[in-house]
């Protein structure tokens, strides 16, 4: 079932400033559609990661001094509803624990927990209070299959996650997110440490996963942005310069700065 096009996340007049005085993001307005890969790209220091970490409030752990605007996240629609209800992620009253289960994150470095492969996957579910063995086992298998890792590890789920290669570890991290059955997946340069073959596997997984999830990807190269993007946003020094559907931003940029960047004149 392909759901109707819907705005999963609406970012409105979003500002973020770190305690050291560096303004990181200025007046960001961005609408992220469901069931698509939205790519945030641009040179380092543009604020892409900061925006990503704001969406699931991981920025709470960082030294943020000022944050304003809103990040609206659509609730799942019940039958018969045509317009989703939205919660403001930045609202101090938001349940961040529940939020982080709905909006899950894959980091640039494959960070596996010092546990077995299986325990890495069930970790988040167990924290959420799920004890049912069948459900946990089911989540392990489903998430590993979605992350294209099942074939390689199903016979050694109790091995340490550190026994996996870097590429496998990163797919395990992706599977760990998927095990939580999130609605949104945030990926912060997930393939920056991987070889081309592993990168291909991750990108292929993402193309399948977007049928069920909302994906926001900070790519590690312009090429990856061009390969994967359904929607593309170009960030430069804390500003959202341009946001276009499809590959238009690469073939037909409207802003001179975007053009210069994608043609490799700086960055």
């Amino acid at each position, binding site marked *: 079932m392909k759901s109707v096009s819907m705005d999963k996340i609406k970012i409105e007049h979003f500002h973020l400033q770190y305690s050291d005085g560096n303004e990181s993001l200025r007046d960001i307005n961005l609408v992220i559609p469901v069931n698509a890969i939205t790519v945030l790209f641009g040179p380092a220091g543009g604020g892409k990661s900061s925006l990503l970490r704001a969406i*699931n409030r*991981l920025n709470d*752990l960082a030294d943020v001094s000022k944050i304003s605007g809103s990040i609206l996240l659509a609730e799942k629609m019940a039958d018969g509803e045509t317009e989703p209800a939205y919660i403001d992620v930045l609202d101090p009253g938001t349940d961040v*624990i*529940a939020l*982080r*289960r709905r909006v*899950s*994150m894959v*980091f640039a*470095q494959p*960070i596996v*927990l*010092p546990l077995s492969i299986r325990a890495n996957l069930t*970790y*988040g579910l167990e*924290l*959420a209070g799920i004890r049912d063995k069948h459900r946990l086992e089911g989540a392990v298998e489903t998430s590993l299959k979605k992350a294209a890792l099942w074939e390689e590890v199903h016979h050694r789920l109790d091995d*340490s996650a*550190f026994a996996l290669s870097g590429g496998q570890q990163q797919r395990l*991290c992706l599977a*760990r*997110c998927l095990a*939580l059955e999130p609605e949104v997946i945030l990926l912060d340069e997930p393939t920056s440490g991987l070889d081309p073959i592993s990168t291909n596997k991750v990108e292929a997984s993402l193309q399948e996963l977007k049928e069920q999830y909302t994906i926001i990807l900070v790519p590690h190269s312009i090429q990856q942005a061009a390969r994967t993007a359904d929607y593309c946003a170009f960030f430069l020094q804390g500003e959202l310069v341009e946001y276009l559907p499809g590959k238009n931003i690469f073939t037909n940029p409207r802003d001179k700065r975007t053009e210069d960047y994608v043609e490799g004149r700086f960055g």
Partner: protein
Amino acid sequence: MNSLSRTSTTRRRVQRFGFGLLSAIAMFTVIPILAVVIYIVIKGAPAISLEFITGFPREGMRAGGILPAIVGTFYLTLGTAIFSVPLGIGAAIYLSEYATENRWTRTIRIAIINLAGIPSVVYGLFGLGLFVLFLNFGTSLLAGSLTLSIMTLPVIISTSEEALRAVPNSFRVVSISVGGTRWQTIRRIVLPQSLPGILTGVILGLERAAGETAPILFTVAAFFLPRLPHSPLDASMALPYHLFVISTQVPGMPIQIQYGTALVLLVFVLGMNLLATVIRSRARARRQW
């Protein structure tokens, strides 16, 4: 060419001499500990017998065994662990995982460092004042354990905090990013990963407590009490104090009983040390990060 090779030979010789000197200095640090251990073992071993370990002192401590002192030191170490381990680990968790860097935490840290620098006899007097007299615990295992706990706390806190901080922060971020609370993250990831380091610190702290004389001098120690303690409010003999007594206070003391007692204390303390080393090296071999 010729002169070049000659200077390089000279340089190599100087370097070899330097290395030799440094390794000799390093060797010297091993000599005292080896000398002490070997000397005590040779002098004390003849005194060791089943009666010495399991018997009660007789003839004004000039014969018989040292069981009450062994048991007393065991209880004191246990009591110290009961008070100082939960408190010390708790404080370390607070400092490492919850506290932000501010004037308050800096004050705590300075207090801990200074606590570690206080001479042990001062702890003894403090324990006498607070636990024995003011709180009216009397000269007892309880008062002694509490006194030793205060002395042990800084060691346990600082080694535990170090062990907690050694756990990579990325594990915490990941745990929180999948919906973990801070406490869940500590309990399921940070504590298990730092446990060997914490245990090492705990054992080293307790080892110091087991060997101290001054803090128990006024708070626990009985000069001569040829029975085992019945309750935490009982006074007790203890190995370090017993050693002090039989070495200085009892005329006509057979010398091998002194060395025997020293040997038992040394085995007790070095045994704990060995345990800490084994735990640490095993954990290092198994650690994956």
